[in-house]
Each structure stands twice: as structure tokens, then as C-alpha cells.
């Protein structure tokens, strides 16, 4: 964690986002420094996916106030693909099936052109892609297959800021371990602290993924605001014993929010 006066990797300032007529985010402030992994907790419908989708620039998410800076650059007006090429990547919770486009091609695209055989082989070994490589991406993929496919694309892209939308949802324990391993490989390099340059923002409901990934900071997104900040594991303990409502009322949250 750097204390130099350079811009943080991601800086979200007073972000208000509407989907249709409905305001979903009501003033989110979030800073992620280079090398940090943050966890986003919160009830369903609280705006967690909205925050991720707004950062990558998907259509339908209208910023009414505030801004998002990536390395000091305002992302406003930048297309989805431009943001991707700047270094923002996302693993979707439920990625769409694309008829006729193979996972192998998607990995190539994510790698910035074509992925060579060695790269594909390495991803195959890491994520057991097997026959998925030459299938239409996400077409008939099981929950675990879809997550592994998303991780393969992320590892090919190696974004500086990696966003994960519920990487453990709909996945059995074996697959959570594989997905967690891939997130670690992406964010932590070989696990050596000095290589920790990539940053991550992980949405999790259950916290299971935290058994495999070390996160630095946890946030609770509640009613369109980041209501709470703290140690991710402590927050999850608090939420599982008292629920979100109590969690955001607790003294800890009131202090850090």
C-alpha cells in the first residue's frame, strides 16, 4: 500500500447511479490502491452489481452525480472496450451465452489478440477447461464451468483492476477452490508481497471465497451507500450472526463508514 502522492488505482467519488428511473447508488465513495483486494458485502438488490457494471461502463447504468477515476483518469465517456484496454476486467456472475463464439476465441480476445497454445494449455491445466475450449462460450455451461471460463478469460486479460461478481455463487466446493486459486494467481502473483500490484474488488454473499483469497478490506453496501468498512472476516462473522440490518448499526460500522 503506497503512501506516495500518486493517484489511487480506483477512486469512486460520491457516485450516484440510476437504472431506469430508480436510483440504486446514492453516494458511494471507495478508494482502491494498487495491490489491494477489497470485498463488497451487502443484501441482494443493494447495488453491488450496479457498482461493478458502472465501473466497466455497461449501458443502462446512468451516473447522475459523482465520478469514477482510474489512475486519475475520469472514466466518463469511455466505451466498455476502452476501459478494458485501460486495465479493468470483470468476471460476471451470469455471463451471457454467445452462439458461435468459442471459449478459445474469448481467451484470445481477452489476451489482446490471439492466445498461443502454451497459454491455452496453462489455463487448461489451471482451470480444467478441457472440452469447454471449443464449445460456444457459456452455452450450456454448468455453474462451475461458467465460473472457470470467466476466470480463464480474466487470467488471459490480466487486468490491473479485476472485478469479480459473486465468484462462488452456484458453484460446488471443489470449483470454489479452483476459482479461488485463480483469483489468487491473478491478484497475488506467486504470493510474494512485492509482486502485489494488481487490485481486486470481489462481491461475495457467503464469504466462502475468502477461505481461498486474502482480502484486505471489506465493505457493506447497504441502501445504495457503503455503510460499513472493516476486516472482511469480522464483517462476515457479524453479518452471519446478526444480519445486515444490525451490522450497519453496530458501533464498528458507525465509526468506519
Amino acid at each position, binding site marked *: 500500500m503506497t503512501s506516495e502522492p500518486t493517484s489511487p488505482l480506483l477512486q469512486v467519488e460520491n457516485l450516484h447511479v440510476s437504472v431506469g428511473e430508480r436510483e440504486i447508488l446514492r453516494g458511494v465513495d471507495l478508494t482502491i490502491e494498487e495491490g489491494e483486494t477489497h470485498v463488497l458485502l451487502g443484501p441482494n438488490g443493494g447495488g453491488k452489481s450496479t457498482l461493478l457494471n458502472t465501473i*466497466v461502463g*455497461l*449501458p443502462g447504468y446512468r451516473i447522475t452525480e459523482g465520478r469514477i477515476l482510474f489512475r486519475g483518469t475520469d472514466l466518463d465517456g469511455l*466505451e*466498455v*472496450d476502452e476501459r*478494458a*484496454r485501460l486495465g479493468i*476486467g*470483470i468476471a*460476471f456472475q451470469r*455471463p*451471457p451465452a*454467445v*452462439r*458461435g*463464439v*468459442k471459449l478459445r*476465441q*474469448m481467451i484470445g*480476445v*481477452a489476451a*489482446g489478440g490471439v492466445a498461443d497454445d502454451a497459454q491455452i494449455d496453462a489455463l487448461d491445466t489451471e482451470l480444467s477447461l478441457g472440452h469447454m475450449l471449443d464449445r*460456444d462460450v457459456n452455452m450450456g455451461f454448468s455453474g462451475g464451468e461458467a465460473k472457470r471460463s470467466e476466470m480463464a*478469460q480474466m487470467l488471459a*486479460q490480466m487486468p490491473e483492476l479485476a472485478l469479480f461478481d459473486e465468484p462462488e455463487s452456484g458453484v460446488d466446493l471443489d470449483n470454489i477452490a479452483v476459482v479461488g486459486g485463480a483469483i489468487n494467481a491473478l491478484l497475488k502473483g506467486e504470493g510474494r508481497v512485492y509482486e502485489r500490484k494488481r487490485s481486486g474488488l470481489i462481491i461475495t454473499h457467503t464469504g466462502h471465497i475468502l477461505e481461498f483469497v486474502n482480502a484486505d478490506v471489506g465493505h457493506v453496501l447497504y441502501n445504495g451507500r457503503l455503510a460499513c468498512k472493516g476486516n472482511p472476516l469480522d464483517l462476515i462473522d457479524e453479518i452471519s450472526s446478526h444480519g445486515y440490518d444490525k451490522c450497519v448499526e453496530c458501533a464498528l460500522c458507525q465509526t468506519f463508514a
Partner: protein
Amino acid sequence: MPDIRLSEGAEARLAEIRAAAEAAIDKPAALGPDIDITRFRTVSEADKIASLDSLQRQVKETVLLSGFTSDESERSASYFQMDRTPIYERVQKAFDDAIEIMSTEEALKLYGEEMVEKWWWKAVAPDKDKYTAIVALHQTEGYFIRVKAGRKVEKPIQACLFVSESDVSQNVHNIIILEDGAEANVITGCNIHTDVKEGLHAGISEFYVGKGAKLTFTMVHNWAEDFSVRPRTGIVVEEDGVYINNYVLLKPVKSIQAFPVAKLVGDRSTAVFNSIVYGLKDSVIDLGSETQLIGEGSRSEAVARTVSMDRSTVYSRGRLIGRTNSCKAHLDCRGIVQSAESTQWAIPDLASEGAPGAELSHEAAISPIAAEEIYYLMTRGLPKDEAISMITRGFVNIDIPGLPDVLRKQIDKAIEETSKEAM
């Protein structure tokens, strides 16, 4: 008709064909815009050539787009017809005793009696419409290909029907026979010279797939904006026989209307129709297929992918007729309309005739590329136009099981060229 000596019975049959055709010469087709066929004169003679290498460079490049190569090491046999003349026909040495290739008129001279009895206007009726009639009355050759019993020919056989003049009609009659147990891949390209404007191609094709035989027939069409095309095709498949039809149209055409009919007469016989169609400019395209499932356990599948642009009108039809209880068939036609001035129809058509156990099904869809698919690719760093192009290519690039690599590459290449042009 060439001067040949035939039995009385055969002569009578030819006279019947002629009489039927004469009666149908003004009969419009059931589908497609009507064409005044009297506007065209018959194509002329052309000079024979000693090797495919001596084709003009421009001709070579044009035909290559439809999979016809002058490099014959990749092919087992070749037939090239320029206008009305078969200017080149050759079987590669290794396949000399497996394949016969010649013009249909030559075949009539050689095998007159057998031709008339078994194959001549047996799978297509001469009085179906004016386009069958014009071929029956004013035929300008066409190819005859026969693969001998039990011979499996891996390298494709290629045939090209080329038109080099304007305001003509090329009226070809093609016959392919696969004897029992034979296997072959036939690539045919129909092309016209870049200078040609108006014209008509009327093509009769009669294919006979013997017991346990397998014919893969791939046709890539390269026409022109003022050219009209009316193929009429009939296929008969015997016991355990397999017929696979791959059709690719990637260039503008004035109008094309074709509706090949496969009769699965043999038990456990199969027909598969795959088609990839781009509607460009003002093209009027009306394509489909009919499979009649007659033999016990017969199977059929038709897969069509259509992309229409500009001011094109595309009809994508498919008809399955079940006539036996144990048959099973499926239609799958999907289209993308990419222009507000373009029209697409998807017309699946199923019938069970006296076959309560027949299982016939279809999926037909016309819809745009989903925005979320485009954005999905963009989140990996691909610009929007490239994302659309990749999804469109994927949409038309259907998996064709059993398609030989050489054909696969040919189709991929043609799609690649077209999508570059369309961008």
C-alpha cells in the same frame, strides 16, 4: 440432344419428356419472382483448355472463392464448364478406376439406355416449371459424376459452371451417382465473369445415393447483382445412405429461388441440409429444402443461418414430410436482419402423412444480436464493430459434422472475405 441410338422404349420416354417440357415452357414457378426467359439467348461455345492452369487469372481467382482450385493435387477429379462447353474434365490418376466425370451429353452417348431408364429426369420432373422446361428443351451440358461401388474418395471432386457472357441463359443438367457403399465429397462452384451483367442460370441436378453410400455436396455460389438463378434439385437416398448438402451464398444476386427435394426412400437413410446465406444489396433470395422421410428409421436435419443486409429480401424455408412411423427430423433456421430496409421470412413447414409416429420438430428465430453479447465481448477489450463482426461470423459459422477440413477452410475463407467486404 446428341445423336444416339436408343431402344424404342427409351426413345418414347425422351419424347414424353420433351412433350411435358414443351407444355410447361410458360409455367411460372410456385415460388420466387417470375422471369421472362425469352429475353435470354443460349450460352455460346468456348475453347477447350489443356490444363486448369491455362484459365485466365481473373477466372481462377473468381472460382477460387467458391472452392474450385486450379491446384489439382487437392482434388480427385475436376470438371470445368465455360458457358456451354465442358472445357476441362479430368480424373486424377489415383482415382482413375473410382470416378467417372464427363458432361451429361457425353454420358448420354456412352450410357444412353441406362441413363434414360434410371437417372434422366427421374428425380426432377421436366414439367415442374418453365425453368425445368427450358433445360429439358435447350440443355447446355452439365456434369455427370459417378463414383464406383465401395470406393471412398476422400479428396473432393470439383465442378465449376462458369458464365462469361451477358444476356444468356446457361441451362445445365447435372447428375451424380454414388453406387452402393461409395463415398465422395463434391464441391461445386457456380460463378460468372466479373464483366457479366444480366443472365439466367437454370440448373437441374439429380443425385442418386446408393445403399450405404455417402455424398457430401457443397455448393458455393458467386453470382452478380443482375443475375437470376433457378436451380432444381432432386435427391434419392437408398438404404443406409447419407446425403449432406452444404450451401453457401455470400454474394449479391438479382434473385435466386431453389427448393431441393430429398426423398429418403431407403430404410435408415439420412439427409442433412446446412445453409449459410448472406442477403446483400437488392438480392431476392428464396431458399429451402424438402425432405420426404419414407424409409423406416429415416432421419433428417436442416440448419439454416441467414444474415440479411441492405435492401435484400430473404425467404428461408424448410419442409419435412414424414411418411413412416419411425422417422425423425428437425429444422433449425435462424436469421439476423441487419438493415431496416431488409426483409426476412422464416417458413418452417412440417407434415405427417399417415405416420402417427413421425417425430418432426422445428426452431425458427429471427432476432438481432443481443446487446449483452456484444458488451460481453467488449468487456474483454474488443471494439464494438469487431465484436459484432465476430458474433455474426460465429452465427453463420455453423458446425457441420463430418465436413472435410478442406471444405471447412474454404467456407471459413469465403465468410471471412465477405464479412470484410460487408464492414
